């Protein structure tokens, strides 16, 4: 299942419905279909705009912005989705570091999901990535990462 994280927003592109069910069961989080992708419940409800101080998800927005999707609004507000808390958090509130292991065309993530905002070996926050979740071994293979 493809995992596309854009500015801290998760989008999943399963090949089969079974992948969605297994993922939801493993992470104890339901996935909701939005357009051509699945995402976490609280992300599915986000609008593609924010008004400064008006709640955007669970946080007051820090800027007024309209984007092509909620991920662009999250970028402008410096928010990322916290998988553990199931909430939006300021990106600077995410601490921790994960070392991605290079393997052929992929980078192997030691955890099944990479929490956006975690820092790589260079100390920079990875906020976007494109990868493949392998349900058979609960492994995440990341093709590329971005720091914005």
């Amino acid at each position, binding site marked *: 299942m493809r995992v596309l994280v854009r500015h801290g927003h998760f989008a999943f592109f399963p090949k089969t419905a079974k992948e969605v069910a297994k993922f939801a069961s493993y992470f104890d989080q339901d996935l909701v279909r939005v357009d051509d992708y699945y995402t976490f419940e609280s992300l599915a409800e986000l609008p593609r705009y924010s008004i*400064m101080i008006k709640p955007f998800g669970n946080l007051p927005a820090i800027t007024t912005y309209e*984007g092509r999707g909620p991920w662009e609004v999250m970028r*402008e507000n410096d928010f990322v989705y916290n998988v553990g808390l199931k909430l939006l958090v300021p990106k600077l509130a995410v601490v921790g570091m994960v070392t991605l292991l290079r393997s052929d065309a992929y980078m192997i993530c030691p955890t099944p999901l990479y929490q956006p905002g975690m820092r790589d070996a260079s100390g920079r926050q990875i906020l976007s990535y494109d990868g493949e979740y392998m349900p058979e071994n609960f492994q995440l293979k990341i093709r590329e990462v971005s720091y914005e």
Partner: protein
Amino acid sequence: MSKALPASCAAGVVLTGGIPVPSAEILSSGVGPSSGVLILDEDEAFYIPDTTPDLDTTLAQIITALTQVSQALAQTVLALNVLDNKPLGALPPVPAVTANSTAITAAAAAVTAATAQLTVLKAILK
């Protein structure tokens, strides 16, 4: 792609969902209170008021003024006809000026009042 939200504006402050949007550019005079639409486009925000009430009031005042002008002109014609029809003879003619000029003066006053109301409206355009 942009997003339109219902909004209002009072004293130059744009509100949407009760939340002020100070970054919104008001595309009108923005003096009088109004309701309208907030357009968001990336980091830009524009407020467009519904100016139909302004237009409605303006047209109503203009119609009132024109009606009064029309009535005044009709009264003037009537007065001129009265002068033409004055009886000749030894007896003094019946006074006709007051009756006609009162109606003409009243119409002129109504036109002046409509002008004043339009001047006020101009100062508080939405």
